[in-house]
């Protein structure tokens, strides 16, 4: 009986990925076929957009905040704490990074670190502080994680424009005049198309490192296993002598750390924080949640999903510029969202950590 079970489970897991991969390939082949056959059609334009290096580098940049927040979300939720406050973490780090850089002064260096990098780390620190508060509230005070996560978002959403207004008189900060810039790797960056991977801002490189690193930590280190166990069956972890609270704190703080990188990178990529409406973060934290659910809690999958959203956005931006199609831009902008719904409706649920969202009380009788 057990062998059939294994095979069938493998099948479903496999079919999930196969379905997505097959779908992607089918869509691409479709576009490529029609694009090549009818060079004057929209398909040709689409194909041109899809295989352009500019689209790739654009998608990579757009993916940065989503990916980092998604990685963070994975660590927290795998450890058993659902963090829907990622959006708030992005906002607070984006703001802190800019204001710190501005206060220090763009040209100044501290301990040999240019102000912008000090600002970068300050942003990460701010996100860490927020995630620590969130962790204490959820773990120590057993707050409902969803509500506390909402609160983190709301506080950040209020606090960043509030502070900007106190300091600058308006919800937007001034431009700090520098950005993280671009690091170009000679030779490699000359490769067609994929050269975009070697001609990017530091945050893109960080992302390309963070994704496999997160995967490695989760799957190959003892700490990662403890994280997973803490989200699946904390009692199992507790009874083998690992402190569940500590693992959960670590998971949530990691989510703060990673989201902080995403937020800092977002605002410092521009040198400015925009605080209008939903701020410049504009829902990226929520998209990140979608991304990791989509990626089935696998860092690689989450990156894939983030990259998909970013890619759709990059394509959408370019598709708009193709003249002659009477689709209103606002409708084109809904493509990524509709895609998510369609895929969700097709593949259904992802398996969430069994104990995510639940408090773990040590010493409680097991029933």
């Amino acid at each position, binding site marked *: 009986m057990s062998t059939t079970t294994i095979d069938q489970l493998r099948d479903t897991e496999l079919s999930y990925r196969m379905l997505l991969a097959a779908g992607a390939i089918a869509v691409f082949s479709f576009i490529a076929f029609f694009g090549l056959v009818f060079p004057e059609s929209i398909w040709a334009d689409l194909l041109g957009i899809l295989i*352009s*290096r*500019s*689209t790739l580098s*654009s998608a990579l*940049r*757009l993916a940065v905040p989503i990916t980092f927040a998604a990685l963070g979300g994975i660590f927290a939720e795998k450890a058993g704490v659902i963090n829907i406050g990622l959006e708030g973490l992005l906002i607070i780090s984006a703001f802190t990074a800019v204001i710190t850089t501005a206060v220090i002064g763009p040209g100044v260096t501290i301990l040999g670190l240019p102000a912008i990098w000090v600002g970068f780390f300050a942003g990460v620190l701010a996100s860490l502080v927020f995630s620590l508060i969130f962790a204490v509230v959820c773990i120590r005070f057993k707050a409902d994680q969803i509500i506390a996560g909402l609160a983190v978002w709301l506080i950040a959403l209020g606090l960043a424009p509030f502070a*900007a*207004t*106190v*300091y*600058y*008189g*308006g*919800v*937007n*900060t*001034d*431009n700090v*005049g520098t*950005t993280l810039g*671009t690091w170009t790797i000679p030779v490699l960056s000359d490769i067609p198309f994929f050269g975009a991977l070697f001609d990017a801002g530091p945050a893109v490189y960080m992302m390309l490192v963070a994704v496999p690193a997160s995967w490695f930590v989760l799957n190959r280190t003892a700490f990662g296993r403890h994280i997973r166990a803490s989200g699946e069956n904390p009692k199992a972890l507790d009874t083998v002598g690992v402190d569940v609270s500590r693992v959960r704190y670590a998971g949530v703080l990691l989510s703060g750390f990673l989201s902080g990188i995403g937020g800092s990178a*977002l605002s410092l*990529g*521009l*040198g*400015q924080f*925009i*605080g*209008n*409406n*939903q*701020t*410049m973060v*504009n829902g990226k934290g929520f998209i990140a949640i979608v991304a990791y659910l989509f990626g089935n809690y696998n860092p690689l999958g989450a990156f894939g999903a983030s990259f998909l959203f970013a890619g759709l*956005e*990059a394509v959408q*931006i*370019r598709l*708009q*510029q193709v003249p002659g199609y009477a689709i*209103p*831009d*606002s409708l084109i*902008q809904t493509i990524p969202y509709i895609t998510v719904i369609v895929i969700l409706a097709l593949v259904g649920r992802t398996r969430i950590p069994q104990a995510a969202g639940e408090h773990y009380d040590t010493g409680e009788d097991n029933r």
Partner: protein
Amino acid sequence: TGGPSEGSEQTTTEQSGGNGGDETTATEQPTEESGPAANVGMVYALGGLGDKSFNDAAKRGIEQAKSELGIAYEEAQPSAAEEFPQFQRRFAQSSSPNYDLVSCIGFAQKSALSETAPNFPDQNFMIVDDEVDEPNVASYKFREEQGSFQVGYMAGLLTTQEFSAGAGATTTGEKRVGFVGGVDAPLIRKFQAGYEAGVKHADEEITIDTAYAGSFSDSAKGKEIATSMYDKGADIVYHAAGGTGLGVFQAAKEQGKFAIGVDSDQSKTESNYADVILASMVKRVETPVFASVENVVNGEFNGGSTTTLGLEEDGVAAVFGAQLGSEIPQDVKDSLTESRESIIAGDIEVPTTTE
């Protein structure tokens, strides 16, 4: 930045909306016994101060009035359309102080003001960017398409030639420019229409890429859009996208291309990007703000009238960048002077909508 004792940094007309205590409006009222020449209530457009363009321009106007006419003002930054009537009303109702004028910045306030104004017949209002047909409202509109035509014409002339200045350069052979809009709304289309007409006026062959970000605050997206345009070979990108547009400048800088600012002279307000901002389509919001205050102070309030400010009235203009302006070839400048005259003379009809 210091505590209260250090006092407020005076904002200058040049560098508006910067650090400082403009926000602590309670202290703006001079304490001298004489009292201010007039009290003005400012209701800004959505997006608030610090946009380095529209609202900040209005603020320059009122600051100018404050220093030159000795008025006092208080300001409100609504964050949703439904707050417009509330702020308008608060000013209109206030008795301490009694406001001599309420300035409503932005077309979005039109419908709110159409309701508010009749309810306060003794209160003077002014609105920028749209027309409210009430005897106690002075309306000011701009011909954005005319200014946009000018910068479009300039972009068209420059993309067809080899030109480099500051941190940017045009690519030879490629005749391409871009336009980035914030939200796809009629007003922004007006900018686009004028710009496109200007570009085509220079050379029918020029390709114009246009795209909308869907937001006035998504600067990251603004940057991506502009980057995609530069990647395709666009030399110059003009934006009418508020905070989103800041991403356009960033992209220009990174790509070594040019950008055109909007509303304020952005080569000054965004001085970090002065080396890529060729020019700005300034919309002198400060002009009607100052003028209406001046009218009130002089007892000549022009309620019920609509003033349209175009190239002729110098309400809109193409202003060359502070740093790059001097490097723009003289023949281009001459052509612009020429087209300006033609527009004023009515020889060139600038469209207000895209086809």
